[in-house]
């Protein structure tokens, strides 16, 4: 099984996965900051900034969704049975 996994990994794919993970972590950190700013603004009665903060958090969530759902290594292609790599076909 392990040997099979090793033969299937291609140069560059690990980098793509790492990039996806790093971007997701960075977005999570940004959202954490936005949540803290939202709490701060609500308690300070800065109501005018609440909506932009929530919208920003929503945009971050949509980007996260897009990274998870649609960003794939270019060597992977979608077929009726799921994603396959170029050398699997």
């Amino acid at each position, binding site marked *: 099984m392990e040997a099979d996994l090793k033969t299937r990994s291609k140069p560059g794919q690990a980098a793509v*996965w790492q990039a*996806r*993970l790093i971007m*997701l*972590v960075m*977005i*999570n950190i940004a*959202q*954490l900051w*936005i*949540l803290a700013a*939202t*709490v*701060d603004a*609500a*308690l*300070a*009665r*800065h*109501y*005018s*900034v*609440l*909506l932009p*903060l*929530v919208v920003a*958090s*929503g945009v*971050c*969530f949509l980007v*996260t*969704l897009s*990274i*998870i759902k649609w960003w794939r290594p270019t060597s992977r292609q979608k077929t009726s049975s799921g994603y396959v790599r170029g050398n699997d076909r």
Partner: protein
Amino acid sequence: MSSNLEARAIMTRNLSDESDVRAATAPFQAEFPYERDEEAQVTRREFCNFLGLTSAALFIGAAGFATKAALDAREAVSLSPEHIAGAETLALNSSLNFSYPTERDSAILIRTADGAYHAYGQKCTHLSCPVYYSRDHQRLECPCHEGAFDVATGDVLYGPPPRALDVIEVEVRDGQVWATGRNASEPKDGG
């Protein structure tokens, strides 16, 4: 028994931080009823999904908090005068906690050294920690992030709070102290 011997053997030989990290933690891991090897196998896909769920939770949290704050701001609370029990006998340069206008709205009444009464909402305007009256410094202080408020006006003296404390209007009627209204201050920059 054999695991104890094995653990003792591991402890007695020299271990390297890098190459023997599993062996070094083995005696302690044996105390816990889970398989470490299985536990360590989190796939990238699972981790990605976890980050996605975290993102969703943070978004929902921000949206929920903002919605609640906006609804609270619109909610009109009817304020009827309420007698503050025990205020008449309050010593000079001391404070008394009470609730106004509802049981959930904690407040603090201060009788200054000159005998005047001042009352404020007890929630710090920074992160809602309860403020207390510092007799030594004769000011209201927040213990969480070291903010301080003027005892006569409720204005911020120093620290992170962005606005003054909510002021509770007090009146002395026939020797009794009554709370008659509550005013929330605006942020310093008017935002």
